[in-house]
């Protein structure tokens, strides 16, 4: 029987396999940031252990960093101590690091692909659940905890029990105006926040093949929001074209050997998945969330659901709690929900293509009175590329704030937060209670919907602007 993409990558990395025990898997790339690593480095020190392969390890500062005054010391002493701990640990253990101020600094999941470090067939881990992003290249990439960070630092391996595989087949093509973000939000609403639990999701079908690498990263990034360990997309010409010529891409004969190998990775025709979900791309439309987990979403044309209409009592209770937290009444049309903040950025939607898409909507327009919009590039390279295209001027002319690179308002760990009861349209990945700041209310949206919402002040798509 044939094998799936995930099984092929797994099999190629098994160091040791024994009945009744997890497989020991070799890790090709270990990404590190300041929040989930200090205790791991402490553990190494306490045990007198070193980092086995600093040359397969890369550190960057992203979660804690401010996006204003980035040339000054970090104002919050606790954040500064954590960033300084990462710098000291990187120096002590010989790990390459991109610090604030470096042209390569940025969100870990934006930096690695843009350098060409993320390549098909690799195993990639990071102490961050959105490591699933790198699966867009056909890598097996997943988030780990701090104990596992320590384990990979010490041994460059991880003991793992094989994941199950689930095919998410997206038939047809996405309609005009429907984006990768809308697709993944619809997938999560369909299968639920626990629907992918224990699985690696493989996204397949014509709609996926037609997507750019940036769009594929958006989809794989949010696999974790469906409970999955990882999301993957088989590498193809789009993948190879994206990687070729980047700083860490293979060159010469190595490039040819690499591409020849990458072409063998696609799931075999006779391979079987443990589960399969089929989505009709033609039925999709712009999608937004109304609740406090990413599965609580509806089409933008829909209404806030009535908890009484839900069959499952557990979901009913969760919906009631969510509506209470979000300050929403059942039956409200989504388009009537007003926001005071719009956040464009994050490892989900902070890439150049995302900024271009939002800028296209904002060009020649101005954001609504009383709305603030933060535009936060995912990396310094994205910021520089956007400025070279003049996108920064489009944003500032429209009244938005043009910021430095980092995780910013995705997670309420740095100065960019919502105040209690403030409501955002956010291109990030989580609408959990307090995620963007205590008491803050988050609606997850695509970059295009974010931009249109900033202009109208209520949840909107670019199509709403044309008719306004």
């Amino acid at each position, binding site marked *: 029987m044939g094998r799936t993409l995930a099984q092929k990558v797994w099999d190629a990395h098994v160091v*040791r396999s024994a009945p*009744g025990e997890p497989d020991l898997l*070799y890790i*090709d790339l270990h990404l590190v940031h300041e*929040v*989930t690593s200090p*205790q791991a480095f402490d553990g190494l020190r306490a*045990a007198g*252990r070193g980092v086995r392969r*600093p*040359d*397969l*390890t890369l550190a960057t500062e992203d*979660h*804690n960093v401010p996006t204003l005054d980035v040339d000054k010391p970090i104002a*919050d002493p606790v*954040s500064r*101590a954590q960033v300084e701990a990462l710098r000291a640990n990187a120096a002590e253990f010989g790990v*390459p690091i991109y610090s604030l101020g470096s042209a390569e600094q940025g969100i870990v999941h934006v930096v690695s692909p843009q350098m060409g*470090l993320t*390549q098909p067939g*690799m195993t990639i881990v990071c102490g961050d*659940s959105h490591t699933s992003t790198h699966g867009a290249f056909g890598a097996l990439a997943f*988030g*780990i*905890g701090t*104990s*596992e960070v320590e*384990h990979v630092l*010490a*041994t*460059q*391996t991880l003991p793992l*029990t094989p994941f199950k595989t689930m095919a998410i087949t997206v038939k047809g093509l996405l309609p005009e105006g429907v984006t990768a973000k809308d697709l993944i939000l619809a997938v999560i609403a369909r299968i639920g*926040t*626990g629907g992918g*639990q224990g699985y690696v999701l493989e996204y397949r079908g014509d709609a996926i093949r037609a997507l750019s690498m940036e769009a594929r990263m958006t989809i794989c990034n949010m696999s*974790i*929001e469906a*409970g999955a*360990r990882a999301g993957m997309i088989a590498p193809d010409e789009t993948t190879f074209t994206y990687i070729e010529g980047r700083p*860490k*891409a*293979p060159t010469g004969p*190595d*490039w040819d*050997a*690499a591409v020849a190998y990458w072409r063998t990775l696609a799931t075999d025709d006779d391979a079987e998945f443990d589960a399969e979900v089929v989505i009709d791309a033609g039925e999709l439309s712009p999608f937004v969330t109304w609740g406090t*987990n990413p599965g609580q979403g509806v089409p933008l044309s829909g209404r806030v659901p009535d908890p009484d209409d839900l069959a499952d009592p*557990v*979901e009913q*209770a*969760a919906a009631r*709690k969510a509506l209470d937290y979000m300050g929403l009444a059942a039956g409200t049309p989504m388009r009537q929900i007003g926001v005071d903040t719009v956040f464009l950025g994050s490892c989900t939607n902070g890439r150049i293509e995302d900024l271009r898409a939002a800028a296209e909507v904002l060009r020649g327009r101005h954001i609504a009175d009383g709305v603030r919009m933060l535009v936060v590039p995912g990396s310094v390279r994205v910021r520089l590329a956007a400025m070279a295209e003049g996108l920064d001027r489009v944003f500032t002319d429209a009244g938005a704030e043009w910021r430095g690179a980092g995780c910013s308002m995705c997670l309420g*760990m740095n100065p960019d937060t919502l105040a209690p009861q403030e409501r955002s349209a956010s291109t990030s990945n*989580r609408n*959990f*209670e*307090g995620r963007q700041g*205590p008491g803050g209310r988050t609606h997850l949206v695509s970059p295009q919907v974010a931009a249109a919402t900033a202009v109208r002040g209520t949840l909107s798509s670019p199509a709403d602007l044309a008719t306004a």
Partner: protein
Amino acid sequence: MEPFTVHTGTAVPLRASNVDTDQIIPAAYLKRITRHGYEDALFAAWRRDPGFVLNDPARAGATILVAGPDFGTGSSREHAVWALQDHGFRVVISSRFADIFRGNSGKGGLLTAVVDQAVVDRLWAASEADPATEVTVDLGARTIAFDDVVAPFEIDDYVRWRLLEGLDDIGITQQSAELIDAFEAGRPAFAPTTA
């Protein structure tokens, strides 16, 4: 890590599903660089509500958290496990856990016991009726027992063995050092490095 065999304690019934790790420990508390001292951070936002179950004096000293399905979703932060342990929890019982949270728990010695939702419902009712209800979690026998109920729970064989023995993963893996060396020698020339 201390071996885990049998534990008896009282419970905290947490009637909520999809308890994500941002609720277990909000991001503001992740800036610390220590491995301990997170007891104040556990459910920090929810604890501001005087009616939150963890604020009930009758729950003081409880060591077993009983939660709705999909406990531990979201961020990979292992601080969620540390905060639960620092507060005194030894066991979390639910009908479904998020993968990364469950993995982190196993590494840190926090037992995650998967039982049918019907068992969760009975345990919620028993503990709400009498907060002093004692629950015994027997890892060897894979059972939880309270009142006249004895119910099996599910846990991965290997994780169970490691918890029973109190073993450190890195030490186990380093016994395979020669296999790691051999694998490394065979990696393709095109594999990238960060150096």
